[in-house]
C-alpha cells in the first residue's frame, strides 16, 4: 500500500540531443499542494506532459497511485485532472456545453456536476456566451472546471492563475486550498507568480534546466527564507571571492544594490565577521534577515547570474 499519488524515478526526456528533463525523481502525497517553480524552459510543462501521457519519457519511470507500466498508467490517469499550457475547450460552445461535452467524454452520468462546477469557478452566470468570447481569466476558470470533472485525486495545473484579476486569483487560491483540504486532493501547480504560489502551496519543487534542484516543504522554505546574513560593503566582488575561497561557500547572492545575502554560516556569524576583517573588508551592514520565495528561488538556481 503506497501513500504516494505520484512517484517518478529518474525521469529523463531528450529531444534530438536536447535534454528537457534530466533524472527527475519526485514523490507527491495526497492532501498537499506542490508548487512547481522554474524559469521558462526549465522543464515544468515537459514534466506535466509526461505525467499526463502526452509525451513519453526517454528514460525513467512514472508511478501513478502506485501503478506503473503503460496500460496501468492509462487506467490510473482516469483519476487525474489536467490543465496544461492553455485551457482546452471548444470555442463555439458555451461553458455549460463544454462541461457537457467533457462529462460525456469521461462517462460521468451526474449532470448536476456541471452547474456545481460552474458555480465553483464563478462561471454560473455566463449563460449563452460562447467560450471564444470569454476573457483570458474566464477561459482559465473554464479550464479548471473541466479539469475538476470527475473528482480527480491528482490535479495538474500549469499556470492556472494566468490572466486572472486579483479577486480571481484569491478565489482560485481558496478553491485549490479547499479542494486539497476537503477532498484530500494532491495538486501540482506551476506558476511564475511566486508570491501567490507562496500563499497557495504546501510544498515546493524547484526545477532548473531540466533538473530538480530542490524539493522542500513550506516549513523548510520558511526556515530557509527567514535566515540569511545580509552583508553590506563597498567591495562586493572581493567579498564574493573571499566567501568562495576562505569560507568555501557558494550559497550567497550578490544583490543589485551591492549587498550580499549569505545563506550559509547562519550559526557561525563570528567566523564570517572575522574572515571579512582579516581580508580587509569593511562591512557597512551585517545582520540576519528574512527572504522571499522569489529571492530564495534565485539563490537556489544560481545566484545573481539569474537575477
Amino acid at each position, binding site marked *: 500500500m503506497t501513500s504516494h499519488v505520484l512517484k517518478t524515478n529518474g525521469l529523463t526526456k531528450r529531444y534530438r540531443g536536447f535534454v528537457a528533463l534530466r533524472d527527475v525523481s519526485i514523490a507527491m502525497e495526497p492532501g498537499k499542494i506542490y508548487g512547481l517553480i522554474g524559469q521558462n524552459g526549465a522543464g515544468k510543462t515537459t514534466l506535466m*506532459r509526461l505525467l*499526463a*501521457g*502526452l*509525451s*513519453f519519457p526517454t528514460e525513467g519511470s512514472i508511478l501513478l497511485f502506485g501503478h506503473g507500466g503503460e496500460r496501468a498508467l*492509462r*487506467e*490510473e*490517469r*482516469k483519476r*487525474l485532472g*489536467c490543465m*496544461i*499550457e*492553455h*485551457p*482546452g*475547450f*471548444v*470555442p*463555439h*460552445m458555451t461553458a455549460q*456545453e463544454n462541461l*457537457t*461535452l*467533457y462529462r*460525456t*467524454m*469521461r*462517462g460521468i452520468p451526474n449532470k448536476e456536476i456541471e452547474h456545481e462546477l460552474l458555480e465553483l469557478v464563478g462561471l454560473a452566470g455566463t449563460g449563452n456566451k460562447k467560450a471564444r468570447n470569454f476573457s483570458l481569466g474566464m477561459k482559465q476558470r473554464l479550464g479548471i472546471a*473541466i479539469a475538476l470533472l*470527475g473528482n480527480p485525486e491528482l490535479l495538474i495545473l500549469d499556470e492556472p492563475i494566468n490572466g486572472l484579476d486579483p479577486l480571481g486569483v484569491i478565489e482560485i487560491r481558496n478553491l485549490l486550498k479547499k479542494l486539497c483540504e476537503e477532498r484530500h486532493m494532491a495538486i501540482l501547480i506551476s506558476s511564475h507568480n511566486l508570491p501567490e504560489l507562496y500563499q497557495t502551496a504546501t510544498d515546493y519543487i524547484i526545477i532548473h534546466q531540466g533538473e530538480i534542484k530542490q524539493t522542500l516543504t513550506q516549513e523548510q522554505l520558511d526556515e530557509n527564507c527567514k535566515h540569511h546574513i545580509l552583508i553590506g560593503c563597498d567591495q562586493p566582488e572581493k567579498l564574493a571571492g573571499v566567501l568562495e575561497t576562505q569560507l568555501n561557500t557558494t550559497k550567497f547572492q550578490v544583490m543589485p544594490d551591492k549587498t550580499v545575502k549569505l545563506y550559509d554560516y547562519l550559526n557561525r556569524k563570528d567566523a564570517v565577521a572575522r574572515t571579512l576583517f582579516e581580508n580587509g573588508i569593511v562591512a557597512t551592514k551585517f545582520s540576519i534577515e528574512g527572504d522571499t520565495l522569489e529571492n530564495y528561488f534565485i539563490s537556489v538556481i544560481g545566484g545573481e547570474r539569474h537575477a
Partner: protein
Amino acid sequence: MLNLIQADLYKLRKSRAIKVLLAMTTVSATVMAVMAYLIPQGQIDASMTGIGFMFSDMNMISILGGVIAGILICGDFDNKTIQDAIASGFGRAAIVIGKAAVLGVAVALVLLPYAVVTAVALGTGHPFGMENVALGFLHLLTAEGGSAFAAADIWKTVFIILTLLLVYAAQLSICVPLAFLLRKPIFVVAIYYGFSILCAQLMRLGDGSHWFGSLFSSTPYGGRHAFMSLETGAGDMLATAVVSFMFMIVTTAVTYAAFRRAELK
C-alpha cells in the same frame, strides 16, 4: 470509446460549421439534380456538364471531406480535446477508431442530401443525364433516371445508396492519418483535393492497364465502386462494401501506428 464517439456526436450537433456544410450540400444536390434534369431536355446546353459536375457529390466531397476531417480531428488538436482524452486515460487506439467512426458518420450526414435528392429524383420517373462525367449518386441518377421502378428496385436502390455512402466514407478515411499527422486543416483539404484529382487520372490509367486496374480496384477509389446502378449485382455490391471496410481498417491502422508514440503539445 463509446463515450468518445458520443461526445464527438454531441459536438457535431453543436457545430455551426457542419450545419453550413450540410446547407451547402443540400443546395448543391438540388442544383445537380436540376441540371441533370434540364440537360437531356435541351434546356441547358450539354457543354454545361462540367459546371454540373462541380455540384456533384464526388466533386463536393473532394473539397468538403477534407474540411470535415479538419473540423473533427485537427480542430480537436487545437482545442485540446484529444490531449484531454489522453490525459483522462483513453488509449490512443480508442481515440483513432472513435475519430474514424465519427468522420464516417459526418461524411454520411453531409452526403445525405445527395442520397435524398437522388431517391426523390428517381421517384419522379423523369430521365436525367450529365453526359459521361457522372460518378457516385450522380451516376445512379443518370443511369436509372426515367426507368420504371419495381418494389424490389426500391430496396436495391436503398442498398446502393448505403453502399455509396460507405464508399465515400472509405475514400475519405485517408484524411484520418493526414489529419492526425499534419494537424492543420488547410493541408488536409489541399492534399485530399489533390489526391482525389490524381485518383481520377489513375482511374483512366487503370482502364488501359489490367494489372494496375486490378490493384486500383482493391481501393475504394478504383474499379466500378463509384459507378453503381440497378445493373450492379449483389456480389459486386458486397465486394465494394468489403473493399471499403478493408480500406478503412488499413487507414485506421496506419493512423494508429503513426499516432501511437506521437508527442502532443
